[in-house]
């Protein structure tokens, strides 16, 4: 990749005896969306807050747009949405957004932004009287109003209703399409699946999985291939035509499962056998795991405090 928009290498952060971030490394390409996915307390917010310049790391390096995260020159170039708060309780929603817009040379139109995030009706309401979801959306608006190159969104859709979540997702997609790099934290699988080019799964302060959603969810060893066809095919003959170690079963009638190492060769061998035997395989699909399966596999099913 060209110079990454964000580069984190060997990051360590300790709070007293607790190591919250324990050697995290990842890179984010410009104009892409990276999701930091992890259970509560995994170290996502600590990682992001170091990248935002709010906290100093105890080890490792972070480069944001090629600069030290605490460099003042980054402030106009980076937008930040903290996990909670961050507005004058006594200012009205519209006043707060216009105030933040006034810090930037070429801000977005605050009125349009309020409109798109369905905040127009409450722009005259004091921040402290907004609902949690309204405060979240205002915070998102404040993060992007200055037209930054890179945006950090810490749990941007926590507590949002489905409509607001969609509006947030649309904004993230539009940012990416316009060349803005987005780094977001979430514990929502569908959010990562919907938005992220790359996912970094964090648990106990370490990276436990990383890659595109496809990389992470692709079944590798002992995968399954399923298809539907007329009942009563000679499954033994099919198995014999496939690499050793591959098994074929039919259950229920007409539903076939091929279990083995799923790769392009296996798929070709199955379809070749079907073609040779005049079988039309319907609904042929490679079984993949959902991101949630991967997530639980990587982070366990234990409840987090």
């Amino acid at each position: 990749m060209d110079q990454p928009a964000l580069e984190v290498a060997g990051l360590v952060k300790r709070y007293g005896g607790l190591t919250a971030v324990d050697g995290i490394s990842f890179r984010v390409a410009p104009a892409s969306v990276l999701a930091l996915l992890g259970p509560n307390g995994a170290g996502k917010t600590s990682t992001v807050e170091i990248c935002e310049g709010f906290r100093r790391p105890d080890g490792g390096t972070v480069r944001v747009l090629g600069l030290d995260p605490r460099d003042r020159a980054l402030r106009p170039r980076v937008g930040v949405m903290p996990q909670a708060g961050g507005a004058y309780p006594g200012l009205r929603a519209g006043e707060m957004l216009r105030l933040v817009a006034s810090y930037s040379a070429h801000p977005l139109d605050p009125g349009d932004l309020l409109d798109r995030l369905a905040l127009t009706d409450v722009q005259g309401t004091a921040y402290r009287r907004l609902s949690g979801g309204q405060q979240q959306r205002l915070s998102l608006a404040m993060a992007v109003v200055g037209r930054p190159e890179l945006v950090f969104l810490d749990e941007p859709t926590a507590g949002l209703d489905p409509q607001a979540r969609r509006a947030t997702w649309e904004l993230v997609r539009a940012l990416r399409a316009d060349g803005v790099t987005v780094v977001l934290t979430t514990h929502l699988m569908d959010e990562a699946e919907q938005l992220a080019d790359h996912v970094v799964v964090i648990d106990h302060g370490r990276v436990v999985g990383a890659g595109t959603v496809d990389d992470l969810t692709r079944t590798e060893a002992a995968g399954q291939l399923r298809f539907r066809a007329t009942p009563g095919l000679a499954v033994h003959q099919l198995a014999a035509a496939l690499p050793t170690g591959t098994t074929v079963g039919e259950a229920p009638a007409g539903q076939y499962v091929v279990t083995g190492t799923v790769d392009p060769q296996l798929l070709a061998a199955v379809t070749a056998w079907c073609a040779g035997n005049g079988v039309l395989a319907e609904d042929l699909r490679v079984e993949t795991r959902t991101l949630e399966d991967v997530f639980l596999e990587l982070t366990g099913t234990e409840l987090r405090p």
Partner: protein
Amino acid sequence: MTAWQPGALAPQPGAAPTGRMLAAQTAAELKLMLRNGEQVLLTLVIPLGLLVVLTVVDVITVPTGRDRVGFFVPGVIALAVMSAAFTGQAIAVGFERQYGVLKRLGATPLPRWVLLTAKTLAVLAVELVQLVLIAVVGLLLGWQPQGSPVAVVALVVLGTAAFSGLGLLLGGTLRGLTTLAAANLVWFVLLVLGGVLFPLSAFGGAQTVLMLLPTAALSHGLREVLQDGGGVPAGDLLVLACWAAVGLAGASRLFRWE
């Protein structure tokens, strides 16, 4: 809802000109102060109320040979400056830290010195309103000010610097509710011991120590000028300058933004 136009969000980063940031921030700080009921009570209603009540009702004996309004106007000005620059500022900053406002603003192009300058300008604007109202009410009560306005301005400006430094030190280091309690307690103690209500001579031998309190220095200095027509009260200005140095140095060293 129409879709985002391609390019509508294309990056175009840049900080606004400093003057624009300062103007917007000062307006916001001022709005917040005037909108906050407790702040208005503290900075305007209580000082003006005390001025009227203490002048009209003979509950506190002023030193012999002094007219009541001439004694209380300087004290109430000192109280007003303390309320706006110290108590109000400390409480606001304490809660702003607690609500993550200052942390958030630290991630924007707004420089910290612009934020602090805006807060100071807002305090000075409120003080201007206070001084005008106190002067008007005082004149209606028969106040006859003496002395040089320049000395008054010097005292108020140094007093503001001292109280702002102490307010930022308090609000910048303690939690919101702790700041609220501490700032109100200090306000009350200084109201009683700072020469606002009672002449310091009422405290006998403790007077020499109490003279070193910022409120006492400000009220005493203002009385020397406004009531006695004295020149520049160098001793009181020196006390205020020391408090300003201590407060501002402490605040700049210990202030935490979150």
